[in-house]
Structure formats: C-alpha cells, structure tokens
C-alpha cells in the first residue's frame, strides 16, 4: 500500500498521525471551481466537527492549471461570520498526485489509503467541480457515520427531470431491483463512509479495471450494499456542476459505469438472486424544494442515433438480443418525431439480455457496451418526449413505474441467466 504514497505524502501522514474525518476531493484541472469546494469543506469541518481531527485530501490526476496550488491556498472565508465556536484541532490539508490508471477511481483509492493510514472513523468524498456544495453537506455525509453507526451514506439530490438519465434509466432501478435497497442516487459522486468500509474497498483487486475510472461510484455503492454494510442517504438539496467536465465523453462514461455494474452482477450473483423485494433507505437531512437549472435536450439527434444504431449494428444486436426483442426494437425505433417510443418492458429486457451476454462473454465486452449507447440514447429520447409536460413529482412517479417493471421482469433475468449458464457448461463439457 505504501506504493500509493509519494515520499512527501508519507512524511506528511506520519506527521499528522491520526484523524477522525478525512475529506477527499479528486481533481483534474479544476482550478476554477476547487477553491469553492475546499472552502465549503473547511468551513463544514470547523463548524460541525470542531472537536474532531480532520484532514482534507486532494487527490490530483496531474493538473496543469495550478489546481493543487488553489487547494493549498484556498482561504476558509470569514470564519467569524460562519462559526459559532472555533475548532479545537487544526484541519490539515494535503494535495497529492495519485498513482495508477488516470481516473476518478484511482484518485479515490489514494483517499481510501490515506483514511486507512490515519485510522479515520469517517471519510467523505466530494467532486471538485461542484458549484452548489455548502458546509452543511459535510455534516450530512459524515455525521450518520460518526454518530449513528452507518457505513455508507449516498447523496440524495433534486435534479432536473432530464438530468442523470443513466441513473434514472438503468442504475437506480437495477440497484434497487437486484440488491434490494432504494438508493436514489447510487452514482451521485458525493459519499460518506466509515473507515472500516474504506479499508474493505482497499482489499479489493479492481484497480486495473473501469472501477479506477467512472465505475468507482457504482462499485462503491453496490459493494457496500451487497456486503451487508449499513447504508443511508443524505439530502443535499440541488446538485449543480461546473459546465466543463474534462473527459466526460458519453461512450467512455457509459461503458465504464455500465461495464462496472454488469461486472458486479457476476461478483454478487449469489446476493442478488436471493433478493425478492426492496427496502427504503433512511434519509438524513431536511428535504426542501429547490430550483434546478433548466436543461435542453436535442431529442432528434438521439432518435437519429438510435435509428442508425438499429440499422447499422443489427448483426451485433442479433448476437445478444432475442429474436423477438430485436423485432420489437426495430418496430418501435423507426417511428419518427413524437411517435418515437421505447416501452419500459422492451428497455428492461434489452438491458437484462445485455447483462447476461456480458456475463457469459457472448461477444467482446467492449463492443457489447459500446453497442448499447445508441439504444440508451433512444430510450433517453423516448423518456424526454414522454415527460416533456410532466412535473418533477410526476417524473418521479414515472421512474417508480420503470423500477416496478425492472422488478417484475427479474424472474426473467434469473431464468435466462441460469439457462445461459447451463448452456455454456453443456457446450464446454461435450
């Protein structure tokens, strides 16, 4: 593990000794926004945890825009106006480059290692491009761990109805269906977790996979749930990012997140097959209405992507979608304009069939995941067209309906998963 730490970091950690809370901020060229995040974290620690020893760790991917300098020199702000009492301990601040594959997951790994080295009781991670973070976020994410015995706190935000479509269309319904916990933002980006869980994460040998990139969020959430850690949620209000998100190419992002999720289905097959229903996950914080930034979505472009995908990738789809699914998909996808629609059941079956194909390596996994992008865009366009005139509450009900379809179709997934497994065993044995 010492390999993860540069010499200066080792010396710094030895000097600090121990800490109660470690707050990690992964970054890559975020000089523009990270100062605000560091200030919010500093004030949050001073205000809500004045008696705790805390360390802020910036795990940087080699920024060239002085991100690390901004982290080290960001001022806490007008402390007298913000704080009722002054902290007993100094809050340390570290900015260090991480080792390994460039990506958010590798940055987190260094943060986990720091938390373990300092024997931290709680660890919080927040994105470095947040514009809506407040000091209260640190309390909401850390206190359930420090004082209520929770191991993992996922964020809960209000988002625009078109925002977070991978979450709404795949990750949230599937996490709930497979692992039985209704975590609304399983890949939210901001998390609180115990030192025990951080140490458990470090034991896993996943750091050469997509978990080292954008797959980290879903991997953390599923690992926590599937391994029986105590999971909660914290209401954080609205999540507003900086407009610029380096490396946020849809295909790569989609591939890394969905690939990690499908891969976890193989690892925790014995867990999700036992789950029959879902539990509500406790929500910390006081939910309040917030305004969200308006979004515009180019559905025509997405519909065109889906139509082209179905037309050009037919050979690939026929290798993992059932004949009936492919016929249905072709029929639905070639309707234009407002008539374009991909029904829930068809969508769910496509995702389940893709998950089975991924597990049994029916075709190259990279190709399989890439081929899902046009289908995902088609489904997103269908969803956007469907909820254009809906309120936020109606959209939540619509997502709830999709979750129920995922749950209703779970026997189909289990049956075909097992059948494909038997078929493979048979083919290998003769």
């Amino acid at each position: 593990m010492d390999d993860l730490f540069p010499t200066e970091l080792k010396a710094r950690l030895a000097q600090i000794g121990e800490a109660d809370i470690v707050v990690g901020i992964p970054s890559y060229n975020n000089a523009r926004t990270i100062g605000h995040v560091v200030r919010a974290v500093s004030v949050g620690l001073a205000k809500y945890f004045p008696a705790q020893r805390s360390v802020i760790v910036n795990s940087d991917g080699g920024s060239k825009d002085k991100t690390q300098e901004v982290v080290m020199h960001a001022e806490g702000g007008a402390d007298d106006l913000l704080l009722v009492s002054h902290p007993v301990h100094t809050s340390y601040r570290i900015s260090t480059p991480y080792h390994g594959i460039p990506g958010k997951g590798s940055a987190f790994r260094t943060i986990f290692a720091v938390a373990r080295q300092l024997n931290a009781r709680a660890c919080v991670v927040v994105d470095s491009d947040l514009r809506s973070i407040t000091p209260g976020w640190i309390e909401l994410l850390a206190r359930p761990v420090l004082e209520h015995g929770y191991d993992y706190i996922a964020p809960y935000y209000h988002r625009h109805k078109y925002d977070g479509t991978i979450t709404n269309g795949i990750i949230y319904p599937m996490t709930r269906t497979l692992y039985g916990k209704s975590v609304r933002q399983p890949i939210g980006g901001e998390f609180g977790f115990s030192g025990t869980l951080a140490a458990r994460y470090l034991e896993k040998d996943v750091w050469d996979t997509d978990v080292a990139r954008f797959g980290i969020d879903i991997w953390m959430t599923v690992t926590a749930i599937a391994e029986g850690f105590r999971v909660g949620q914290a209401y954080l209000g609205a999540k507003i990012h900086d407009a610029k998100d380096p490396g946020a190419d849809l295909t790569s992002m989609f591939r890394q997140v969905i690939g990690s999720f499908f891969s976890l289905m193989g690892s925790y097959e014995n867990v999700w097959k036992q789950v029959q229903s879902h539990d509500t996950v406790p929500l910390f914080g006081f939910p309040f209405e917030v305004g969200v930034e308006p979004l515009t979505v180019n559905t025509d472009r997405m519909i065109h992507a889906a139509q082209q995908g179905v037309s050009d990738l037919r050979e690939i789809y026929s290798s993992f979608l059932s004949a009936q699914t492919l016929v249905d998909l072709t029929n639905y996808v070639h309707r234009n304009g407002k008539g374009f629609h991909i029904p829930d059941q068809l969508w769910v079956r496509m995702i389940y069939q893709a998950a089975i194909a991924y597990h049994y390596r029916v075709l190259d996994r990279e190709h399989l995941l890439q081929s899902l992008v046009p289908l995902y865009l088609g489904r997103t366009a269908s969803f956007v067209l469907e909820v254009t005139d809906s309120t936020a509450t109606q959209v939540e009900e619509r997502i709830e309906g999709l979750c129920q379809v995922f749950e209703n179709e779970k026997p189909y997934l289990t049956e075909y998963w097992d059948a494909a497994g038997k078929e493979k065993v048979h083919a290998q044995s003769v």
Partner: protein
Amino acid sequence: MRSLFDRMLLEPFNRLAEQSTHVVPILIMVLVTLLVGGFLAYCVRWLTYRLLQLARFDHLVQRTGFAGMIERTGVFRSPADLGARFVQALMWLFVVLFALSAADTPASVELVRRFVDYIPNLIAAGLVLLLGVVVSRMISRSALLAAVNAQWPAARLIAGGVRVLVMTLAIVIALEQLHIGSLPLLVAFAIVFAGIVFALAIAFGLGARDMARQWLEAKVRSSVAEEEVFRHL
C-alpha cells in the same frame, strides 16, 4: 525376315511387358491407396461432422457471427459441415502424398520432398490468413461502433473499408509466405485506394466545400451545446 519381325514387334513388346511388371503393381498400389484413403477420408468427414454436432459447434460459431458468413457462401451447409470438409481435405492431402511416396519414382519422390518442404510456408500462410480474418473482424467492428456512436452516416462503409484494408494486408503477407508474387496485388490495391481517397478529397474540397463547413460548424456547435447542459450520470 524373322529377325526383322523380332526387332520390330517382339522386342518392343517384351520391353513393354518387362517395364509393365514394374509399373503396374505400383499403379495398382497407388489406385488402391487412393480408393482406401478416399473411403477413410469420407469416414473421417462423417465422424468429424457428428462430433462437431455433438459439441454444438454450429451453435458456438453462431455466436461469433461467422455462421452467417459460411452459410452465405452457399458451398457449405453449416459450420460443422465446413469443419468436416476441411478435415476431409486434409486427409485427402495426406492420402495423395502417401500414394506418391508409394509410387517411389524419382519424380514423385521429388514432388513429395518439395511439398513437405513447403508445408511450413502453407501453415504460416494459413495462420496469417486466419489471424487476418479475426483481426479484420475485430477492428472493423470497433470502427463500426465508433462511427455509429459518432453518428457518421457512412459507418458501415467505413467499417467495410477497414476490413478490406486489413484483409488485403493479411493476403499480401500470406502470399509472401507462399513465395507467390504479391507485389502486383499490393500495387493494384495501393493505386485503387489512393485513387478513392484522392477522388473523395477532391469531391469534398471542391464540390461540397460549403456543405463541409456547415456540417462541421453544426457538429461542433451541437455537441458543445449538449455537453454543457445535459448530464447522463
């Protein structure tokens, strides 16, 4: 008179009869070898076909997408049929070599020796071609997916072009292994390929200059606009 008759008819006939005593057994042996070998090759083909069917070979190949390609050739009924016929062809090759060896004439011995020497080249060429098929398939599929996800209209054309390019390279290397002149093929391909690229460049640069500019502008504008406002995670 008798002497002339002996010289013109009996002596050649005797010589022919004498030579025939050497050649006919060899011919019979070659014929029998071919007949028995052919029968054995047929039996091996039948057995291979049954074994491949038992192993659900067709089903396995179906998943790779090669099955459609094999069926489209119209020559083979199924991947198992192709496999069985391939084994039969190999068997036939060995039977013919065996028969030639059995003939034990200087020409046949030399032919067998040269063929045996050539076998490593054949294997190398076969492997290169096999690798070419696999690699071209992988790369063309990657190109197809990248082009579709970038929403390029000619995605399949691009994928096809990539496949032809990689296969041409594999064929040229295989021909080199077989010591068959590959230069004409390479030159012909280079001329055609360069011609296509040149023609497209001229067409795009002159004929569709405004359209290209507008398309690129629209592409950049729309992708930036969407990235700024729309988050998937």
